[in-house]
């Protein structure tokens, strides 16, 4: 059971929403669409579901061309970011609704609704109306409706985004269990890199209507194919700077330099460094000191997020511990350049960090 997009594109008038895209999604894992708001995640999902027809290309499901086939015939399920339930039905009828349309026998419906509502822990509120439920319960109800029928394709469009932190954690932990025994293709859209990493599976990064990279989530995170992928897959945003490499030395300024990765030839590169590899404390001797002006330091409990300007670049540091800084203060922060990405001027990845992930330099 696979979902395959072949050169699928969507344009509304002169405005391109999705550029021609090839994608092969497999069952048995989370297929994550990671991208910022307006990157085209929802559009891509409505195309996959068949709610909208692509302006170009074909959609194949299980070796069958389903392009343009009505959504009612497709056996898909979808959960939206907004909690969508039928307000005039109680929770039981909400969950039962796809089965009723499919004209299943009454006892079969009751069996399935009971089972799925226990799985999602809403069996206590089957006789309530959706607007009498809390946000988390409403979304559980919507999920139960999506899971109650044996869909071939389940689309989850930022299902946890409108929930508060605690409920989000709770439901996210349950997600893998809910899909474990199903033979279906699961697509999960999110804006949060952390969520993608926690769910694992495969990730496709979306940037302005294009899929920039697709592969195992771990790989996309460790070795993003290009700069856009790396930026989409970094929160807070990745720190960028233009650097120059000559004779094995990488320079940010005339005086600030460090050894460049051996595989890189001379020339200009874009440096990318994740925020947690910049710190106000020098832990290792090879960390590069960067002179900075503090813009704002946010103290989030046990973490500090320090926004600063350094050599004309806006950078962010994300560190454990409380590191208060005055706004406008001059400071020296330390950049762990061994964890830096190097992108060529056209945005392609030239070198990924080779340390710290349980692999040796030699092994890479």
């Amino acid at each position, binding site marked *: 059971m696979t979902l395959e997009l072949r050169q699928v594109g969507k344009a509304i008038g002169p405005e391109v929403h999705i550029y021609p895209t090839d994608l092969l999604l497999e069952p048995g894992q989370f297929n994550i669409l990671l991208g910022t708001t307006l990157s085209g995640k929802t559009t891509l999902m409505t195309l996959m579901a068949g709610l909208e027809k692509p302006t170009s290309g074909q959609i194949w499901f299980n070796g069958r061309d389903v392009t343009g086939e009505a959504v009612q015939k497709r056996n*898909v399920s979808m959960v939206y970011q907004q909690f969508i339930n039928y307000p*005039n039905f109680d929770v039981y009828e909400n969950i039962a609704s796809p089965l009723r*349309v499919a004209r299943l026998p009454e006892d079969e419906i009751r069996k399935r609704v009971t089972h799925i509502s226990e799985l999602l822990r809403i069996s206590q509120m089957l006789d309530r109306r959706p607007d009498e439920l809390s946000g988390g319960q409403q979304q559980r109800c919507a999920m139960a409706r999506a899971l109650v029928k044996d869909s071939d394709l389940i689309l989850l469009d930022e299902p946890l985004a409108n929930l508060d932190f605690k409920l989000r954690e709770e439901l996210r932990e349950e997600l893998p269990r809910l899909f474990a025994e199903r033979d279906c293709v699961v697509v999960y859209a999110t804006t949060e890199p952390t969520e993608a990493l926690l769910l694992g599976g495969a990730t496709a990064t979306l940037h302005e209507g294009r899929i920039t990279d697709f592969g195992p989530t771990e790989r996309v995170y460790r070795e993003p194919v290009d700069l856009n992928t790396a930026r989409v897959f970094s929160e807070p945003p990745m720190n960028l700077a233009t650097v120059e490499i000559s004779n094995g030395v990488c320079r940010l300024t005339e005086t600030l330099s460090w050894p460049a990765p051996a595989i890189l030839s001379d020339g200009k590169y874009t440096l990318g460094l994740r925020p947690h590899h910049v710190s106000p404390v020098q832990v290792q001797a090879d960390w590069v000191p960067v002179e900075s002006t503090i813009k704002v330091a946010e103290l989030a409990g046990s973490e500090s997020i320090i926004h600063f300007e350094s050599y004309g670049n806006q950078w962010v540091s994300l560190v454990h511990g409380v590191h208060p800084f005055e706004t406008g203060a001059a400071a020296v922060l330390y950049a762990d350049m061994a964890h830096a990405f190097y992108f060529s001027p056209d945005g392609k990845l030239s070198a990924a960090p080779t340390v710290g992930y349980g692999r040796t330099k030699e092994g890479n």
Partner: protein
Amino acid sequence: MIRMRWLVPTFYILFLMLPIYWLVSMSFKTTNEILGAFTLWPQNPTLANYRTIFTDPSWYMGYVNSISYVTLNTVISVSAALPAAYAFSRYRFLGDKHLFFWLLTNRMAPAAVFALPFFQLYSAIGLFDTYLAVALAHTLFNVPLAVWILEGFMSGVPKQLDETAYIDGYSFWRFFTRIFIPTIKAGIGVAAFFCFMFSWVELLLAKTLTAVAAKPIAATMTKTASSSGYELGLLAAAGTLTIIPGAIVIYFVRNYIAKGFALGRV
């Protein structure tokens, strides 16, 4: 100071209720008492006026006629407005905003403008003096109003509800009747209420387009004098009865109206 807080609303309500009280009180008086002396309440209360109305077909048929064409109009207006409002709220098409505004401009012309063309047209096609004639004429301003109100309520329902229903396997019509209409029933209540009210109080078109068979109660009431002189008590009774249907409708939709105001469209 706090103690006196009831004063202003009390005066306001008294002020509002005074004409209605006067009307009701007159309806229980004889014409002689009304014309004879200033009395705050009926000195010799009588039900004769009401008896006349309920027994004389030329009176009570006025109510039957009015309620008939008003109901017909409400049904036509809301049924026509439902699909139109759905289209305006869900689809983008060429000129949709202009069309929406143009619909509203139909409300801006005085009814007198349309009286003559309607009269001529309906006479020519044999619709003159029927319930349908008045009901259709009133759709001219009630359909745009209903579209406007319903569009507001429908736009408050996320498009994802439609999509979820299609994904669950609902056909469009099944979704529209089983899920969508119940979801916006408050809006339908509000729209129906306003259609009812505007059609109920409209006099000019109703009077122009009818003669005998479909003559509205308000037209009956305008024959102020009869062979026996002024019959003010009778008129007051008729007026009192005219208020009642509106009051009943308001009672049933009061919660919906509040919701409609909250959504900012009414």
